């Protein structure tokens, strides 16, 4: 079934999306690493990463964007034509291979001004122990 569009009317301030759970498999990390082209050995070299404080490969922290986006688009599609005004990220803990990560997005702000629809979304990603791993924020002019 085609998902509905995520429209402004469905983004009131304070709305919380349902949490999404992802297991960070080695393949997911590898795909993301290839997509951004990093060659940092902490992300690509198992032997090197074994000797780091993490003891295994860790994901590039900007994988937080992917988890964040998936969390607010789990049940709806993004309408085209929006404008990303500002993005912010906080990386708090390394996310290792096979970690379970739970991401939940909340509408931090939502208002109309001079005919434009402004929305700020914040996604918080936690690990299985409930510790914060990433925080991602997107300030946008919402398209519809």
């Amino acid at each position, binding site marked *: 079934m085609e998902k509905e569009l995520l429209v402004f009317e469905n983004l009131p301030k304070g709305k919380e999306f349902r949490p999404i759970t992802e297991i960070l498999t080695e393949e997911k990390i590898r795909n993301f690493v290839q*997509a951004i*082209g990093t060659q*940092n050995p902490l992300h690509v070299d198992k032997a090197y990463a074994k000797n780091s404080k993490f003891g295994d490969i860790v994901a590039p922290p900007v994988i937080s964007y992917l988890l964040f986006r998936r969390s607010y688009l789990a049940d709806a599609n*993004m309408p085209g034509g929006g404008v990303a005004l500002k993005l*912010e990220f906080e990386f708090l803990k390394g996310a290792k291979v096979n970690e379970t990560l739970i991401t939940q997005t909340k509408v931090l702000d939502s208002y109309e001004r001079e005919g434009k629809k402004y929305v700020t979304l914040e996604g918080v990603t936690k690990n299985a122990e409930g510790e914060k791993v990433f925080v991602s924020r997107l300030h946008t002019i919402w398209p519809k």
Partner: protein
Amino acid sequence: MNKRINFDNLKAGNDIPPLYKQMTQEMINRWADAVEDYNPLHVDLEYAKKTKFKSTIAPGPLVICYISEMMNDWLGIGWIEGGKLLNIKLIAPVKPGDKISIRGRIKEKRVMKNEKIVECDVFVQNQDGIKAVVGTAVGLVK
């Protein structure tokens, strides 16, 4: 890559080791597949030609990833556990073929709660010196 940094030697105005990349449609397509974002402005050449940009453009978050990569290569663990990208603004497009440099400069360093913190101005600019992305990166020196 992320050699040990001596915090005492860091000064405001110091440059972070930059990264250089050339944007290609293939890089954009790989990103689109990874994040499942097939906005035609990024992946459909015919559609994008009719927009004000006259070509496809790279998704902003992909370009922001390069800033994180620069910080990660410089600070290592102090970026992965303690990095922040703040007030990152997308101000001009990056198009396939653009040669971009990813750069940063230390604005301030401070010690808080025994953590050694560096705050940097970061930006991505194209071959014509036009800034595409600007913002602040804060990380830890470990």
